[in-house]
């Protein structure tokens, strides 16, 4: 909790984006989370990504459930729509929002408690339905708001702050998302914005369900030697498999960049709907970020070894989203008037006739 208000004055050379806004215009209220919480870095990364992409803040819907993570939508994009849902029920509200207005950018922020425990059923179904949104899980492996009990993503054998070991197997949300149809799956670390910000940009522009599991250490309860979700553990055991660089629409490689000699088969670019691209650099030539089964196997194997695989694990730029699956009209449903919604007796008669 911070009692000093963040001054409105900003760096005199802070750049303006295409909308004439600076990064500070994308901020929210000052965080009331504990000092050093990884979640605040995730919020800062969202602010940076949205500002650099020149996305209009008022065209966002930010939706969350309950928990430390779910407080964070207050701390970014002040000028957007928001809904703080019941515990674990963020996916239903996000689904409704996206179905009603397909033109809004939808960001859902949830935590390991909200998505892997009380809301795991909702989580599974929003993945299946491929709602066009960015779903972030701020994953710290602990129930911070209730003082540090193990959450469902806490690794077996890792200990509480007092040294008691966790006896149960963890739920890996990345593996679940891969298995049931997410078309953009990544894992990142709140302490590494160089990795996280391009992933957020790619996910925000991706059409379909984009899932990012962000390891976001809880400094108050789960940042100790026995934890596998601490700053030190992730820095020591994190293994980036595919690095994503965001290339804007008007990107032209500088002379220095074209000289960079990538080993054959290790880089590729993935087109995003607005014309920008993601440049993927693979550390291992054999890794295929378009092969769901391969990605899943890699994640599981790494998990056995105690490694935290990060980076863009899977992407399918051509996947369909929920609106395409349902074949809805281009016009957002909330913009349809009475004439379109109630076409009259004649239309009903024709439909009935077609069923005879």
């Amino acid at each position, binding site marked *: *909790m*911070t009692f*000093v208000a*963040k001054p409105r004055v900003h*760096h005199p050379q802070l750049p303006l984006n295409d909308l004439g806004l600076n990064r*500070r215009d994308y901020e929210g209220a000052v965080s009331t989370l504990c000092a050093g*919480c990884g979640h605040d*870095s995730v919020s*800062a990364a969202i602010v940076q990504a949205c500002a650099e992409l020149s996305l209009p803040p008022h065209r966002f819907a930010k939706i969350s459930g309950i928990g430390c993570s779910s407080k964070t939508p207050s701390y970014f994009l002040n000028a957007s729509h928001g809904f703080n849902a019941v515990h674990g029920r963020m996916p239903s509200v996000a689904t409704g929002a996206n179905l009603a207005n397909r033109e809004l950018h939808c960001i859902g922020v949830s935590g390991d408690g909200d998505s892997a425990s009380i809301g795991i059923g909702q989580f599974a179904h929003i993945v299946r339905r491929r709602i066009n949104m960015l779903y972030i899980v701020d994953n710290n492996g602990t129930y911070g708001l209730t003082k540090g009990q193990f959450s469902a993503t806490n690794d077996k054998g890792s200990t509480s702050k007092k040294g008691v070991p966790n006896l149960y197997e963890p739920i890996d949300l990345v593996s679940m998302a891969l298995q049931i149809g997410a078309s953009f799956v990544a894992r990142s670390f709140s302490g590494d914005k160089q990795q996280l910000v391009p992933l957020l940009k790619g996910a925000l522009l991706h059409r379909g369900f984009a899932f990012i599991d962000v390891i976001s250490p809880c400094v108050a309860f789960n940042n100790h030697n026995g934890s596998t979700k601490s700053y030190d553990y992730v*820095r020591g055991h994190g293994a980036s498999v595919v690095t994503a660089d965001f290339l804007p629409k008007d990107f032209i490689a500088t002379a220095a960049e074209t000289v960079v000699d990538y080993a054959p088969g290790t880089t590729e670019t993935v087109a995003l709907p607005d014309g920008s691209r993601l440049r993927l650099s693979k550390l291992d030539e054999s890794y295929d970020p378009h092969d769901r089964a391969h990605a899943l196997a890699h994640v599981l194997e790494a998990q056995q070894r105690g490694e935290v695989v990060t980076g863009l694990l899977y992407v399918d730029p051509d996947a369909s989203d929920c609106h395409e699956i349902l074949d809805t009209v281009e016009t957002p449903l909330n913009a349809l008037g009475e004439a379109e919604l109630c076409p009259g007796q004649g239309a009903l008669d024709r439909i009935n006739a077609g069923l005879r």
Partner: protein
Amino acid sequence: MKATDIRDPSYFHKVVDCQWACPAHTPVPDYIRLIAEERYTEAYMVNWESNVFPGILGRTCDRPCEPACRRVRTEEKPVAICRLKRVAADHKGDISPYMPALPTRKNGKRIALLGAGPASLAVARDLLPLGYEVDLFDRDPAGGGMMRSQIPAFRLPADVLEEEVDLILNMGVNAHFNYEITSMKDMLDMNYDAYFVGTGAPRGRDLDLPGRQEVDAHISIGIDWLGSVAFGHTHSISGKVIVMGGGNTAMDCCRTSKRLGAESVTVVVRSAFEVMKASDWEKEEALDERIPIVNNRPPKEFVHENGKLKGVVFGCVKPVRDEASGRLRYEPTGEPDVYMECDHILMAIGQENHCPWIERDIGLEFDKWDCPILDETTFQSTHPKVFFGGDSAFGPENIIWASAHAHQAAISIHLFCQGKDLKEDRPPEGLNLISQKMGVHEWSYDAEHDPAQRFIVPHADKSKALGNIKVEVELGFDRALGAREAQRCLNCDVQTVFVEPLCIECDACVDICPMDCITFASNGDEDDLRARLTAPAENAEQDLYVSEELPTGRVMVKDEDVCLHCGLCAERCPTNAWDMQKSAIHIPQLGTYAA
């Protein structure tokens, strides 16, 4: 870059821009906080200790601190530091309990101070508490030097001047007024243990143009004329007056003329308005009193008829910026010369330090510009017993420089009288860092940033002010306005101190910093680092604070340039790797520091 050595007193001193820019290094944020707490007497004493004349300087200082103020870089207008100094002086209570104790037994050393201006008075103040016997000599009938003779009463009321001058004289100075010093040799024969020359820059420059001799009766040298007004010899001026020159003396001359009954007053300057030497606020005051300032007009000739001045012919030039040097030079515009009628001319085109009474064969050497050759640290001349300070040392500056010189000269005199080495034994600067953390989220200073604009100081009613030379124009802030202006201070002396071993590199400080001052990056040389920071650090005059290497191989780099000292980095740091610590810079001075 190498990790910053924050134990070097000058590192954090430089972050306190106002204190660094002040020649006397007055701890500005310290006294502004005291004003905010309505502790005016203590605020006054902080000033008195450092700059000796808070009430006078609070009205007349050249304010090198204000353009340096961080607020100029973060927003636009600096904190009104000078006017806050005046708030402390105007509202102070009884200062006698704070005055230094004066030993009843003298230490046996006798010091002669030549000139009774700010430099000599400040030396006296520093030496008297150590038991020196101090004799002061001045040709004027009262103390204060140029503060009395050259600054008009509408800027500096006599009672303010006298209070601060008398405070020192009453510490036990043996004052010899109306004492015209005619020979340094005679002074040396009086066999004092040391001499301090603080005779200022008393000679106003003249202009030798055609007609100058013929109209001598109608031309006055600005500073001499102001002195004669100050001592009551001149009460009026009539007809059309032209003031030549663009410095503060010119502004004082024109505003004084207006008050003494001139039919019209015009200031004519040979250079452009922007490069005039006068302080911006002095120019504004003159314009506000509807005194025209005519620029780019070098004088050519004094026109006279039957021994009476009729007017002045001026050439017309325009400023041209020299591509190579970036300096302004002046080219004729080709327009015909301008003739301006006038009955009286006040010449305010500069002044010089001038010591015709110092014999050139007594071992005291002068350089080719006729200035004494001095050591810049010790202020000792080539005659070991003789020290200089104020305008007589390195030419015309202003009062605050005189205070600064005086402190150094007093240390030198003290060391000299003890037979110590003036450089080897000079006391060093020091630094104390004191944590301001009071509790988990509690700081002992007001960390909140106040976005208020600079407050405007009230002025006396113009019709009243212009009718009487003794009516002070600026009224100063009252307590309420002073308190609000004090809130604008950013507390730059409350430093962000970083302790590497505690940092877990969580980025909380980077995320919260409103000014993007903090970056964690791989190390590099300074130019490279400056370009790679969260916000590029383009102001090379402001240092980068670089940590030792952190566990990830990166370093913490903080650009000091626009830091608001809001404490949010320390507030959001989970491990107290950041702390807000007040830097107390110890500038050696007799009496405050064992010399």
